[in-house]
């Protein structure tokens, strides 16, 4: 099935991907962000926060976007 997938890693990605039926959010994360920490990303499905075992459906829009973007001036 086809899902829209958005991620800023590597060359950046914002396109449709083909994934097997029954794929969960956690499985997609492991596949797409090998070695990545889920806590470093906000994971949303159809613009809503997603849980790890959520099963994806055809046409879903999944985004892994960065979290805790923080700046400070030197002390």
């Amino acid at each position, binding site marked *: 099935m086809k899902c829209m997938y*958005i*991620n*800023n*890693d*590597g*060359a*950046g*990605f*914002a396109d449709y991907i083909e994934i097997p039926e029954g794929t969960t959010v956690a499985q997609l994360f492991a596949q797409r*962000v090998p070695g*990545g920490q889920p806590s*470093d990303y*906000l994971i*949303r499905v159809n*613009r809503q926060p997603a849980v790890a075992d959520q099963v994806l459906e055809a046409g879903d*829009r999944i*985004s892994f*976007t*960065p*979290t*805790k*973007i*923080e*700046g*400070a*001036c*030197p*002390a």
Partner: protein
Amino acid sequence: MLFLRDVGSTEVGGFGLTNPQDLLFVEDFVMVQQVCSAVTVAFDDDSVAEFFDQQIDAGRRPETFGRVWIHSHPGTSAEPSNVDEETFARVFGRSDWAVMAILARGGQTYARLQYHVGPGGSLQIPVAVDWSQPFEATDWTAWQQEYVDNVRRDGPLRGGTFDKIRTSHAVTEFLTDHEWLLQTEKGMS
């Protein structure tokens, strides 16, 4: 960007929207929701995700909106802090390339390109304004609104003063965000 740096007493930050043909050429600066103090700026995670969705809906590629992280410093130093370095490594370390740009209130600028393709590496790049590019007229009201809409103040301000909107900018400071442009001297290839 200069206006947003100076409009409040807090740091501010956002993403540079770059030209698809010249990925280090920043054409616009977009703020996301953020919690700021005089010396820190933290983006709201949901707002970052929303920003990505909006930009993609507008037909842009992540490499043209999610790679140039810009924030201000209140003093004269634009040198990155440990917090800045930690964010840059953690958040942008998995992208093929990214730029951390810092604009100090005193006028100093800092920009570093980090790339992770091939052997990887990092280099400081000069920041220049390209005056040959057309830019929109200054719109203080809209920019002020952008600040008010996006910045939530956190922590005590230096000297305990309240924000005061500066209304008399010197002509040289009277720049649009289109004018604060990052350019490299093609040193990355």
